[in-house]
C-alpha cells in the first residue's frame, strides 16, 4: 500500500482536512453487542490507518504521520464531532505503543509499530496480578532466562482485551534476588505462544473485557525484552503515565460525545412532549456538570502541550487521571438520576435517554477510579512527587 498523502501540519488546515475526510467516510455506528462492537471498531481502525488518519505523533518510518500529539487531539475532536467512534486498539495506541516507541530498539519498532497502528495486531497490558494490584512492584510472575529465551510462568489478572490481543506487554520478575522494583523486566509476549491460557472475566457491565491470563512455561526470545533486564519498573511507570495522560485525553472526547448525546436526548424528549424535559433542579445539575466537563477540557489542553513538549511521564498524568475518573463518574451518575425508576429496565427510554446504554456507561465509569492505578494511588503520587510532601509511612 502506498502511504496516503500527508495531512497538513497547520492545525487549522489539518482540522479542515480531517472534517472533510470524515464527512465522506463510512462511519460505523458501533453495535451494543460486545463482540460485534469490537469487530466493527477493529475495521474502523484499519480504515483510519489506510487513509492515513492514525499515529499522528509517530515517526513516518514506523507507520506514523510525523506530526504531533496536538494533531491527534484535533483528530479525536473531529471524530467526536462526526459522531465517529475512536479506534479499537487503544492499549496499543495510547498505553503500550508510546513506551515501545520511546524505549524499543529500531528493530522492535519497525516490526511492532506499523501493525499496532493499523489494528492488525492488538495489544494488551499484563501488569496486575491477583496479589499485586496497587502494590504492583510485589508482582510474582517469573521470567527465567534459559539461553536465548525467557521462560515465563505466573498469572496476570484484569488484563483488558487479552483475549482479542495478539501481543501482551508482560511485567515479569527476572531477578528474584534484586530489590522489588529492580528485578522486574518488560517482556513483549505473542499471545499465540504455547502455554498461555486466557479466561475471560465477565464484568458488571455484562461485557467480558478483561481476563485472567495464565503463563505456564511460555518461551519468548530474549529479543522481546523491552529496554533490557531490570528496566521493567521504569518502563511500567512510563506506560502507566501514558495510560493516565494520553488515554485520559481520548476518554475525555468520548465523555464530551456522551454529554452531547445526553443533552440531545433531553432536547428531543422535550420537543416530542411539548414541554420541559426535566425539572429545574435537573437544569442546575446539567449546568454544573457542563462547567465541570469544560474545566476537564481546559485541563486536557495542558496535557496536549505537555505531550508535544515531551514532558511525559509526569505527576500531572495522575492529575489528569483523577479528573477523568471524577468527571466521568459525575456525568454518568447524572444520566442515571435522570432515568429515574426506569434506570434498571434495559430496553426502557426515559426523558429521551435509553436506559441500558446509560446504565452500562455508569457501571463502566465506576472502574475509572480503579484501572490504571486507583484514585488513592494517584493522590499519593501527586502528594509525593508534585507537592513534594514527605513520604507517608
Amino acid at each position, binding site marked *: 500500500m502506498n502511504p496516503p498523502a500527508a495531512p497538513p501540519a497547520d492545525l487549522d488546515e489539518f482540522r479542515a482536512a480531517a472534517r472533510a475526510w470524515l464527512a465522506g467516510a463510512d462511519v460505523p455506528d458501533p453495535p451494543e453487542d460486545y463482540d460485534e462492537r469490537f469487530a466493527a471498531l477493529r475495521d474502523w481502525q484499519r480504515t483510519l490507518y489506510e487513509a492515513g488518519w492514525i499515529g499522528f505523533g509517530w515517526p513516518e518510518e514506523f507507520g506514523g504521520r510525523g506530526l504531533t500529539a496536538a494533531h491527534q487531539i484535533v483528530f479525536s475532536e473531529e471524530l467526536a464531532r462526526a459522531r465517529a467512534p475512536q479506534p479499537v486498539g487503544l492499549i496499543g495506541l495510547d498505553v503500550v505503543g508510546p513506551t515501545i516507541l520511546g524505549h524499543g530498539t529500531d528493530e522492535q519498532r519497525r516490526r511492532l509499530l506499523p501493525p499496532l497502528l493499523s489494528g492488525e495486531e492488538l495489544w494488551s497490558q499484563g501488569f496486575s496480578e491477583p496479589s499485586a494490584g496497587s502494590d504492583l512492584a510485589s508482582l510474582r510472575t517469573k521470567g527465567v532466562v534459559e539461553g536465548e529465551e525467557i521462560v515465563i510462568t505466573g498469572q496476570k489478572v484484569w488484563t483488558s482485551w487479552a483475549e482479542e490481543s495478539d501481543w501482551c506487554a508482560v511485567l515479569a520478575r527476572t531477578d528474584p534476588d534484586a530489590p522489588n522494583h529492580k528485578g522486574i523486566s518488560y517482556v513483549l509476549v505473542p499471545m499465540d505462544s504455547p502455554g498461555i491460557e486466557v479466561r475471560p472475566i465477565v464484568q458488571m457491565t455484562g461485557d467480558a473485557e478483561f481476563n485472567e491470563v495464565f503463563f505456564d512455561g511460555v518461551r519468548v526470545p530474549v529479543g522481546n525484552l523491552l529496554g533490557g533486564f531490570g528496566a521493567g519498573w521504569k518502563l511500567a511507570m512510563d506506560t502507566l503515565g501514558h495510560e493516565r495522560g494520553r488515554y485520559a485525553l481520548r476518554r475525555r472526547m468520548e465523555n464530551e460525545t456522551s454529554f452531547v448525546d445526553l*443533552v440531545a436526548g433531553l432536547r428531543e424528549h422535550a420537543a416530542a412532549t411539548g414541554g420541559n424535559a426535566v425539572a*429545574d433542579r435537573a437544569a442546575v445539575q446539567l*449546568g*454544573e456538570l*457542563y*462547567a465541570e466537563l*469544560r474545566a476537564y477540557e481546559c485541563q486536557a489542553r*495542558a496535557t496536549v502541550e505537555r505531550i508535544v513538549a515531551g514532558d511525559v511521564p509526569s505527576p500531572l498524568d495522575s492529575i489528569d487521571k*483523577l479528573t477523568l475518573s471524577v468527571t466521568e463518574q459525575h456525568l454518568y451518575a447524572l444520566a442515571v438520576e435522570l432515568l429515574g425508576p426506569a434506570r434498571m429496565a434495559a430496553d426502557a427510554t426515559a426523558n429521551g435517554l435509553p436506559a441500558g446504554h446509560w446504565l452500562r456507561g455508569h457501571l463502566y465509569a465506576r472502574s475509572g477510579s480503579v484501572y490504571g492505578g486507583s484514585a488513592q494511588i494517584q493522590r499519593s503520587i501527586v502528594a509525593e512527587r508534585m507537592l513534594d510532601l514527605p513520604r507517608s509511612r
Partner: protein
Amino acid sequence: MAALHDDLAAEFAATAEEILSRLDRNRTVTGELEAGPFSATAWSAVAEAGWLEALVTEEAGGLGLGLRELAPILTAVGRHLLPGPVAEHAVAGALAVPAAADSAAARLRATLAGEGMLALVDPAAASPAAARPRLAGDELSGGCELVRFAGRASELLVAADGPDGPAVVLLDAGRDGVAVAARESLDPTTELSAVTLDGVAVGADDVVAANDVAAELLRATHAGMRVAVACELAGIADHALTISVAYAKEREQFGRPIGSFQALQHILAEMARESFALGRTCREAAAADAGAPDRLDDAALAAKAYAARAARSVVESALQVHGGIAFTIEHELHRYYTHLLFLDGFWGDRRDLHAALGRRLLAGDGDVWPAWS
C-alpha cells in the same frame, strides 16, 4: 499569534507578581490595610502599572490588549488579595471608554489612570434578574443594593434601562440625587455600599451608550467581569494550596510532619488537582473569542461557575489542613475565605450560573459544545 499572546501574558504575570509582592512587603500598605479594606498606596501602584487601561482599545488611547493578557494580572490580584475594585476598572471601565463621547471618555480614562475612582452600579453583579435603574427623559432613578467600593468612587458607571433599551450612564458621584450608604462588610477586603439614584439629572454627554450599543457593551462587560472574578478565585485557590503545602511540611504532630499523613496528602492532592484545572479553565476562558459573544458568554459562565466551586473546595480544605490556627483573625486564611465567599456570590452565584448554563443547554437547538476560541 497564540504564542505571542501567551508570552505577553506570561510577562504580565511576572510583572504583576513582582509589583504585588513588593506591595505585600510595603509598610505603608500594611498599615493602611490594618486600618481598613483599602490601601491608597497600593491602588496608585496598580494604576501606575497601567493594568487598568490594558483593555482600552488603541484607537481610544489604551494598550489594546485582551482578557487573555489581563487574566494573569487578575490571578495575581487574587493570590495577593489586593483589595479594591480592580475588575470594575480594568474590565467595565476600560470596555466603556471607546463607546463614550469625548468628555465621558476623558472622565473614564482619568479614573483608570488613578485620578479618582470608578464604581460599577450594575444590579447584574448581585443577581441576573435584578431590575436596573430607569432612565426616563433626562432623569435616572433606581438603585443597586451592593456596590463594591462605591463610598470611594468619584464616578459611577450605571447600567440602566431607557425607554427603548438599555443605557450605560456615567455620573459623577457628587451629583444631586445620588446617595451612597455604606454597609457593614464581613469580608475584610471589600467595602460594600447601597447606591440610590433619585431623579438624578443626566446630560447627553453622560450617556456612554444606548440601546443596541449599550446591550453589546453590557454583554461584553458581564462576560469580562465573570472571567475576571474567576481569575481572582483561581489566584485565591493557588495561594491557599501553596501555604497549605508549606504548612503541611513544617507542622509536626506525633513526631512527624502532618504532610506525611496519607489522609492529609489526599486532601492536598485534590486541592492541587482542582487548583490546576481552575487555572487552565481561566486561561482558556480568557482566550475565548471576544468577537463571538455567544462563545465568550458561555466560557465566562462556565469558568465563573467552576471557579466558585473549585476555589471554595480548595480553600475549605486549606482551613482543614491548618487546624485551629486557620480559625484565628491573625492568620491570613480567613481573609481569603471570606473574600472567596463574597466572590462566589458576585456576578452570579454558582446556582444561578449553573441554572443559566443548564437552561441554555435544554432550551435551544444550538451547539451543545461551542468551541470557545
